[in-house]
């Protein structure tokens, strides 16, 4: 029996999907793990290109815009719920199991949707893509997080930045690919069904790389030259572990929740209305923006969003997580202020500031797992991350609500141009300042929340002391 105060973890052998079957041999390269994570994130990132299917679905099945948005909306709700509640299962069963579940759900979602469109049963599309596929989104999103951080304890920001950049890249791949497929198969029910079918099959094959390739490091494994004690000497970085259950009882979790929520709200504020916003800002100037130029601007923002995920997240490994969020929130607020004061003075000013805000938006998403790891350790960081993603769900409603409601009310009051957005820009600045202060409140987690030392049982009767439990 383990000594008092120690926790017993059993690594029993199991099937192909079990954690014990994914323990890497000593010669395994950790650089094989990011492609495994990317194969999942590049696939599930497809969710953000759902809008490609909206017009054909509306025409083929006689749906309203609200109805055709339902599968995506339910998918995002399920992403949040399954990430929040499925986290402990992912931690217990390991990344291969999680990636397999994600692959089955995400691909099945498309196959059920194909059946739904082929038989003109739209509820099957909502159930398939939204409910079943949405579970795949949530489990897939958190599946590689704690594994990547165990392989890259020296560069956790960079490692999770790669994966989360993949989520941004997923829509870049899916959007033109789905459009081309709809062009080839047609936009009637038959064509849409075939497109869904091909998506389901291709994503199943593509994601299987992650299932086959993912490995967890053996207990006690550390990269060459890495000294955990040295790393823990940095402010806010702990070598202790906090369970997901305890993490949500700490003020640090909720401060970080506010930080993520308001950083995302501020980014979505621009992302949601990017095309009409840039056109409205320069409508009454000598350099009005055309519809196609506005589409190019949206593409540029996507690039900034994606690049910010890897660049800023990697930077956080060098300057520390708290400082990185000071930049996201503090500089972000200044950029918003410049947009509101001088945004219409020149297109370059507007575009550069918007790019900064969007790169911070992406960076905020990608850096948060490493911030959680610093505060709560690697023990159940995937599950804690899943619970923190509820901040994303709230921001997803809050951001568009603020910008759209205010723009509509200003339009009704007879205002035009940049005046439509001034109030919402000031609200975003206020939210970023609250986020900044919330980040300042984050201190190391108190010892009373830490888990007792871990003891691993590989074979009955043998005890060892590992560095992490999941």
């Amino acid at each position, binding site marked *: 029996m383990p000594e008092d105060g120690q926790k017993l973890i059993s690594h029993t052998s199991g099937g192909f999907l079990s954690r014990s079957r994914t323990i890497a041999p000593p010669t395994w390269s950790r650089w*094989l793990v990011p492609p495994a994570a990317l194969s999942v994130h590049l696939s599930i990132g497809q969710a953000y290109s759902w809008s490609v299917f909206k017009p054909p679905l509306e025409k083929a099945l006689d749906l309203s815009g609200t109805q055709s948005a339902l599968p995506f909306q339910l998918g995002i709700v399920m992403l949040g719920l399954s990430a929040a509640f499925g986290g402990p299962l992912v931690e217990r069963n390991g990344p291969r199991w999680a990636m397999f579940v994600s692959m089955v759900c995400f691909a099945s979602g498309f196959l059920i949707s194909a059946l739904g469109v082929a038989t003109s049963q739209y509820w099957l599309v909502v159930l398939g893509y939204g409910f079943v596929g949405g579970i795949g989104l949530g489990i897939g999103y958190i599946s590689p997080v704690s594994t990547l951080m165990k392989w890259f304890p020296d560069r956790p920001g960079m490692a999770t930045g790669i994966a989360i950049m993949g989520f941004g*890249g997923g829509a870049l791949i899916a959007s033109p*690919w789905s459009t081309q497929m709809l062009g080839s198969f047609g936009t009637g029910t038959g064509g849409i069904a075939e497109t869904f079918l091909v998506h389901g099959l291709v994503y199943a094959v*593509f994601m299987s790389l992650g299932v086959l390739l993912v490995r967890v490091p053996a207990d006690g494994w550390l990269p060459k030259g890495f000294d955990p004690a040295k790393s823990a000497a940095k402010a806010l970085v702990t070598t202790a572990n906090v369970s997901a259950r305890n993490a949500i009882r700490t003020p640090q979790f909720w401060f970080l929740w506010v930080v993520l929520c308001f950083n995302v709200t501020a980014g979505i504020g621009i992302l949601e209305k990017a095309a009409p916003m840039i056109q409205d800002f320069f409508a009454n100037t000598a350099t009005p923006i055309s519809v*196609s130029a506005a*589409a*190019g601007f949206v593409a540029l923002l996507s690039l900034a969003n994606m690049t910010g995920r890897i660049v800023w997240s990697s930077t956080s490994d060098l300057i520390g997580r708290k400082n990185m969020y000071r930049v996201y929130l503090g500089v972000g607020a200044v950029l918003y202020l410049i947009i509101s004061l001088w945004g219409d003075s020149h297109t370059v000013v507007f575009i550069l500031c918007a790019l900064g805000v969007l790169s911070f938006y992406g960076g905020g998403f990608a850096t948060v797992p490493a911030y959680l790891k610093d505060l709560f350790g690697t023990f159940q960081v995937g599950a804690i991350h899943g619970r923190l993603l509820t901040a994303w769900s709230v921001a997803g409603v809050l951001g568009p609500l603020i910008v759209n409601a205010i723009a509509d009310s200003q339009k009704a009051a007879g205002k035009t141009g940049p005046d439509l957005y001034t109030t919402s820009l000031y609200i975003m600045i206020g939210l970023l300042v609250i986020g900044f202060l919330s980040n300042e409140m984050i201190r190391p987690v108190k010892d009373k929340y830490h888990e007792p030392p871990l003891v691993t049982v590989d074979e009955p009767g043998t005890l060892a002391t590992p560095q992490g439990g999941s």
Partner: protein
Amino acid sequence: MTEQTETASRTPLMILAWLWVGLPFAYGVYELLLKLSQLFSG
């Protein structure tokens, strides 16, 4: 097999794995850049 040979034998797997994810990603970025050019031509 020695540790070095085993590591070397993983090189093809490494190339395959990165190409597997890298090629679709490059396609997505290429399509994005095409769209981006509209900002300067539009």
